[in-house]
Every structure is written in structure tokens, then in C-alpha cells.
């Protein structure tokens, strides 16, 4: 759990305890003490400026890289990564298309979102089979999609916490970190 929480703080950059807990499927009451321990160890700090929340320290980033490398966690096959790269490109095009026409959603767009969702769920499940914490991304993507289908136009590309694109960005960063990949041209930006 310690690695998962540190990972979530590094991915989010700045995040309150509740958001870190939600992203890791840990109860907020359990996450609090562990985050305090991580802060005690100098791996994260609580920001108190205009942006408040847990942030990683440079030592925390280094430690996470070491932990990911040392724990030698199971990883899905390269095919799964390739499947993500492909669906990532389709999803970002969908985001751009939606931003150009919103709020006039088209049948074509909802059909594309359904297809993208089916594909990324398979990627998430393959990662979750190797590392169970990835299951949280599936749950969060499902929730964002349901909010969008329920008529919340911000749930697809919005900047509030938990939009489909917001969760997707975290998944993307997590996949690259887990696979110990630097972001290359083929990984998308």
C-alpha cells in the first residue's frame, strides 16, 4: 500500500488525502497515517500555498523509481502496452473532436466512446491481473463514462477531478512508470 500511495502522489503532483485514497482503492482513514509516514520519511510533503495537498519530494520520486525497479512487479506483455498506445491515440482524437463540437454530441461520437471504453477496459484488466491496484482505473473510468452518459458534459474532457480524460492521463502516466519507460514518440504526449 505504501508504494501504491507514493505512486499516486507522484502521478497526481498535488492531491488531498481523499483523492489519493480514491485513486488507490484505499479507505481514507487508512491512507492518512501511511501518507503521514511517507512525509515523515521525507518522500512527500504537504503543500500549504495556493495549491494545497500532498506533493512528492525529489527524494520521493527517486525512491518510487527504485521501488518499482526493485519490487520487480509482474507486468503484462508488450502487446498490452501496444494496445494502449493505439487506443490512446484514438481517445485523444475523440477528445479533440468532442471539444470542437460540444455540446452537440453525435451518434458517431458516443459509438466511438463506447468502442474506446471497451478497448481501454481490456488494457486495464490486463494490468490489474498483474498488479491489482490498476483495477481502480477501471472503476474510475466507468464512473466518468456514466456521468457523461447521464448528461454531465464536463465528465469527458473536463478539468475537474475524475473526468474521463483526467483519469486517462493518470492511467497513461502510471503505465509508463510501471513499465519503466521514458515517454517516447510512440507513447503519445
Amino acid at each position, binding site marked *: 500500500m505504501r508504494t501504491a500511495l507514493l505512486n499516486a502522489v507522484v502521478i497526481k503532483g498535488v492531491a488531498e488525502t481523499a483523492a489519493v485514497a480514491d485513486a488507490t482503492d484505499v479507505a481514507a482513514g487508512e491512507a492518512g497515517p501511511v501518507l503521514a509516514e511517507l512525509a515523515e520519511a521525507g518522500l512527500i510533503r504537504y503543500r500549504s500555498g495556493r495549491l494545497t495537498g500532498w506533493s512528492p519530494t525529489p527524494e520521493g520520486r527517486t525512491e518510487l523509481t527504485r521501488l518499482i525497479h526493485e519490487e520487480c512487479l509482474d507486468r503484462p506483455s508488450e502487446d498490452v502496452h501496444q494496445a494502449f498506445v493505439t487506443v490512446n491515440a484514438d481517445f485523444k482524437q475523440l477528445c479533440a473532436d468532442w471539444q470542437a463540437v460540444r455540446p452537440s454530441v453525435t451518434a458517431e461520437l*458516443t459509438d466511438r466512446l463506447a468502442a474506446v471504453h471497451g478497448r481501454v477496459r481490456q488494457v486495464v484488466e490486463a494490468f490489474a491481473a498483474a498488479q491489482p491496484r490498476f483495477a481502480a482505473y477501471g472503476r474510475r473510468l466507468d464512473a466518468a463514462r456514466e456521468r*457523461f452518459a447521464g448528461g454531465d458534459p464536463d465528465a469527458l474532457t473536463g478539468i475537474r477531478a475524475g473526468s474521463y480524460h483526467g483519469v486517462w492521463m493518470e492511467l497513461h502516466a502510471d503505465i509508463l512508470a510501471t513499465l519503466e519507460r521514458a515517454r517516447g514518440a510512440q507513447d503519445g504526449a
Partner: protein
Amino acid sequence: MAAVTSPVHAFPAVPGQPPGPGRALLGGKGAGLVLMTGLGLPVPPGFVITTEAGRRHHAGTLSPELRAAVRAEVDRLARRTGRRFGEPGSRLTVSVRSGAPESMPGMLDTLLDVGRGDGEAAFTELHAAIEAVLRSWDGERAVTYRRLRSLDDATGTAVVVQAMVDGTAGGFSGTGVLFTRDPATGAPGLVGEFLPGARGPDLVDGVRTPEPLATLATARPDLHDDLSRAAERLERSLADMCEVEFTVERDRLWLLQVRSGKRTERAGLRIAVDLAEEGLISRAEAARRCPEPAGTDGLTTIAALPDDQTLCRGLPGSPGAAVGRIALDLDAAEAYTDRGDAVILVRAATQPADLPAMALAAGVLTTAGGTTSHAAVVARELGVPCVCGAVALEIDLDRRVVRAAGHELAEGAVISIDGTAAVVAAGTHATAADAGTGRDLDLRRLLAQWATAGATTS
């Protein structure tokens, strides 16, 4: 409105038939077809099952009364076309299409060539088709669409049943769609496309590439003239630029749908002014149709730059211009903005951890990724200008400098970015409201005068 309305409405009208009950009952498609037949334009005959009747059957099983009404209309349709429904030989088949009062393009079902079975089987097929269209109102994508557009779930859809015309019939046949004026610029004259030997759905599936309408003008000037005349009558009747779907079946033109055409904001200005000049609408109405866009004040641009002042170019990630100090991470962005200084966040590619810094920044500049990158998606959402994919820019996080075009700029140095022109310059370059082209500006001034004149005379 009468307390009891007929569940079906035929077009062209039969003698003694009351006038069309309007869009709320006929749906957009049905109302357009009734209008076109009223103008004497060539429309395949058919009938509309009203939204009111549709609402009583949205669960998807037709009542015996509605079945009887449908049968009577189909019999009449067969007599009108000189063909027979459910019998071999001169067989009548129909299209069964949805038609909600508010346009929901592509959201509801359409079935073509219904009635290929013999005898009663053709009616069973027709009932099933009508039921499928009514049920599609409650389908997931239609429900999602209405929620996002804040449309009423309760209106329901009408169903248009129409004698089939076939763009694959052989001879000179095909299907097309046209705008009565250019939907991008508003310029007068028909703009559209035509796909020979094809049906409506072929036009949108993207497998075959349609020809521009100009090709039809060359190949069949007679048909193009018919379309031009129909377009003019429809514009006069609807007092607007129209989008028209049509099919040619063995040299004969048929119009299948008319609606107000979608257009760009630019085109909207020109069309409103031209329609007023042509006397189709009043000047006050033209002004009413073109409210000041909400975004005009916010969107800025930097003046055209000489090449020697350009630091680098990239891709247009999010429109507008911004000036600020280079910030290479969240800490720097927070430090500068705490002092009241605007910042341009400069990153290789943005990660989720950069979102808080993006929210503080006046502009975003990335060296990797294109117009669909996460950075561009988020910047557009924030309404923050963004130049992305500026590959010529080098970020040195050890020395906290950026380099490009022989220049080296330290973090904190001021740069200007233009997310529309996708250009980056060192120093402060004045930003100005982007009011579009000179002609657009002239049109806006004219419309503003008309709006004032309308307010004082009325």
C-alpha cells in the same frame, strides 16, 4: 390545436385533409416533407405517424387502431404510386425513418426498403420497423444525446413512412446532400456532394468518396437547375440557409429532407446580412440571429512576427495569445504567480502532475505532442493558449534554461506565445483582440447598426 388529432398525416395532402399540424406533432423531418410537398417540390409520397401517436407506443407494440390506420395509408400509397405492397411484380417498398421535433442526427433508427415479403409478411415487417424506430427513442445513445443537449425526454419521435426511391436503381441514379449557401463562408450558391449509384447511408459511411456538386452541374445541368430552383423556393419559405438531402432515381430528382443548415459563425454573419439584403428577413431579424460571440473579447493574437524575432514554431494546441515568464515546473509557476507575474508553463509533455501548474499558467508551451496531446486537450478545456510540439525548443532542467534558434533563455525570462498561429517569441509582444478578418468586422458593425435601428423603431 384540436383535442383529438389523427395519428397519421399523409403527404401530399389528400382532398379534405386538414393542414399539417406542425413540427411538434410531425417532427422536424415530417414537417419539412409536408412543407416541400406543399411547395410542389418532388417528394416521394408517404405519411407521418405523429409524435402523439408515437408517445402512446414508445414501448414498441402498435395498437390495433394504429395498425389499421397504417394499413389504410399504405393502401393509399400503393394506389398513388401505382404499385402494390406485399405483392411481387410492381412492388412498393418504403423507408421508415424517425423524426423528432428537435434534430437528433443519427441517434434514432432508420430502415430502408421495408416490405420485401409477400402478403401479410410485408405488413409484419412494416410494423416491426415502426416499432424499432419508436423504441430507438429510449436507446442509450439517444438518451445520452438528449441529456447533454437538455432536450425533453417526453416529446417522443414521429415516424415517417415514405415510398422508397432508390439511388442504386441503375441509369442515372445516386444520392446527395447540399447546402443552399456555403456553410463555411456563407457565400451564395449551392455547395454539396453527390455519390452516383448510392443510397443515403453510403454518403456518410465514408467508404466511397462523393463528388462535389459542381460535377453534377457539368454531367447533368438539368438536374442541377432543378436543385437550384428548389433551393431558392425553400430558402424563401424557411427564410434561412437550408440543408437538403436528395436522391436521383433513373434521371428523376426526389427531395428527401430539408432543415436549417449548420454553419460556422463567420458564415452566419454573411448569411444573415445577405438574407436581409435579399429581403427574405428584416434587418432587425438579421441582427437578432447574430449575437455577439461570448469569446471575442477573450481570444487574442500577437502581431505577425518577423522571422528573426521568432523563437520557434509548434502546433496550434489551444487558441489565443499569452505573455509571461517561463516556468519549468509547478514550484516556479507558483512562485512567479504568487508575485503577481503571469507565467508560460514550458514542459516536454504534460503529465497529470502538471495540471495544477497549467491551471495557474497564462499559457502552455510543450516540445512534444500534437493538437490532440493531453496538454492541448487540457489547455482548450481551461481556455488557456497553448503551443504544442515545438520540437526545435530544448529544455535543460539541470541549468533551468530553454534554447532555440541560437537563443538561450533562463527560467523567468518573458516570452510570448500564440496558440492560433502556433508561434513563440522572446520578449513581450503586444496582444490584440482577434476580431477575425476585416470583412467579418464590417459585417458585425453593420449588424450592430441594424440591431440599434431595430430597437429604436420598435
